[in-house]
């Protein structure tokens, strides 16, 4: 359908976008092997010593552990709350139904600093949540709900209700139908939403800054170390390693999600 000229223009624009997306990442990888401490151009390559310096950095591991804990806990909370909200919106008609997505998207649509300030005054005022990991988890879960909700609601909209009816007609009760029919059909949507939620939490800095108390997370560690120019190479190394480690699960999830999406249609 597309003319030759249009097609090559499309390829060219796609190429430009990909180069734009990857030039800075390439720079991070290059500077991880830079001999000097500062990011002078051109880089003087050929050292792996920053890897061992990063490995022995004492503050890094607790920060990373906190990030993983906060990410997992916030993701689990978001999975439960987000899919419940998706089911409510998909299965029922009720007053204010149209506003649910509006309320859920607010924490991510409002500026990070506003969400941070608001949650900070809440944690300050409420006695049973303390600054540190609990506050971080509550804050992260709040803005992660929407990504799970969006994924699940989109999947529910595309899946056929006739399957649920067939299961009920064949004598399964509501719980059995949920376990054997509904859950398998939304599994890949939960995976996609969960992964996105984890990614959001793992990379969040502004809300975390205002809720962390004395605790540190990986982004906070990076924030503190980027302020010290002499620590920049270690930060590059850490960023590169995290990026490389994340590629495999992201690629697997991507494949599962696109397969799941195709089977539904």
């Amino acid at each position, binding site marked *: *359908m597309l003319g030759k000229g249009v*097609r090559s*223009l*499309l390829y060219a*624009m*796609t190429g430009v*976008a*990909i180069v*734009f*997306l990857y030039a*800075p*990442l390439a*720079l991070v990888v290059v500077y991880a092997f830079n001999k000097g401490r500062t990011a002078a*151009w051109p880089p003087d390559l050929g050292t792996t010593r920053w890897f061992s310096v990063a490995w022995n950095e004492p503050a890094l591991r607790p920060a990373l552990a906190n990030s993983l804990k906060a990410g997992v806990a916030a993701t689990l909370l978001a999975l439960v709350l987000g899919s*419940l*909200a998706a*089911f*409510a919106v998909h299965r*029922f008609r*009720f007053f204010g139904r*149209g506003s*649910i997505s*509006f*309320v*859920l998207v*607010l924490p991510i*649509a*409002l*500026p*990070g*600093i*506003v*969400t941070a*300030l*608001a*949650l900070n*005054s*809440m944690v300050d*005022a409420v006695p049973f949540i303390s600054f540190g990991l609990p506050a971080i988890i*509550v804050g992260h*879960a*709040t803005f992660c*709900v*929407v990504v799970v909700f969006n994924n699940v609601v989109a999947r529910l909209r595309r899946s056929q209700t006739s399957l649920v009816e067939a299961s009920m007609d064949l004598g399964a009760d*509501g*719980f059995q139908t949920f376990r054997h029919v509904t859950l398998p059909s939304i599994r890949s949507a939960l995976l996609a939403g969960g992964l996105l939620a984890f990614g959001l939490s793992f*990379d969040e*800095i502004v809300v975390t800054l*205002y809720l962390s108390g004395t605790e540190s997370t990986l*982004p906070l560690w990076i924030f503190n170390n*980027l302020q010290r120019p002499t620590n*920049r190479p270690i*930060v590059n190394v850490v*960023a590169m390693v995290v*990026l490389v480690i*994340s*590629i495999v699960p992201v*690629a697997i999830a*991507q494949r599962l999600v*696109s397969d799941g999406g195709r089977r539904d249609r």
Partner: protein
Amino acid sequence: MATTASASEGVLRRLSAALFRHRGVRLWLTLSPPLAWMLLVYLVSLVLMLATSFWRLDALTSTIDRTWGFQNYETIVGSSTYLKLTLRTLGMALAVTVTDLLLAFPIAFMISRVASPRTKGLLSLLVVIPLWANYLIRVFAWRTLLAGGGPVDSLFAAIGLDSVRLAASGWAVWITFCYLWLPFAILPIAAALERVPSSYLEASADLGAHAGMTFRKVIVPLAVPGVVAGSIFTFSLTLGDYLTPTLVGKDLFLGNAISSLLGTANNEPLAAAIAVIPILIVVVYLTLAKRSGAFEAL
């Protein structure tokens, strides 16, 4: 053992049947946890923050004086600084949104309608991976790329653009924002384009429309919800980000005003009052976006 198992199964079955009959209970059980969370955690937080915005900072003791009044709002309206900050922030958010949508549309179209399944998988992966590189690292990478004497500077010098200085400028902030949020623009547009049924395009061609006309009259209108959904991200993320301008630029934005009032000045009431400006802008934007059906495409 068998009897207990079947007894508990019977209970589950009766529970399920009871739930089936009582639609209201089922709705309440499904809806109340997420709703309660959002109300108790988030809306209460916002209300507390709004309340703070009517209090004042005691200049002598630098503690918060909980006397109600509009003084913070009077400060904002009375000085041109905040108007300037708001316009600058709004202008940047709009510029970044337009640029990202223009950059995102071709690659989204490629992913959803042109590429083979294999290439499509690879391209979508390539779009998502940068999101997994730490946000601050990516901002710093741009700082290094655009620094005086850095890679971009040398490139410009080589092609005779010696006078262009991007380091610590509004242009650097614009480029970095466009970079940061580009994947968030591509994904919803690609998803919306993917949902356009091929039969519509065939019908359009059968009725005599050439490719360009089908694009303008069929594809673009059906992509609008995805485009608006993408713009929600690019717009609101730019509106609120205060770290990028301090790291790669020199001008201050609304977020900087809030964060500096919270930090050194410790004037939480005024910060809360300023926070109302982006809240209003985002709420207006979301309300407009909702009308276009973008929420279905997020």
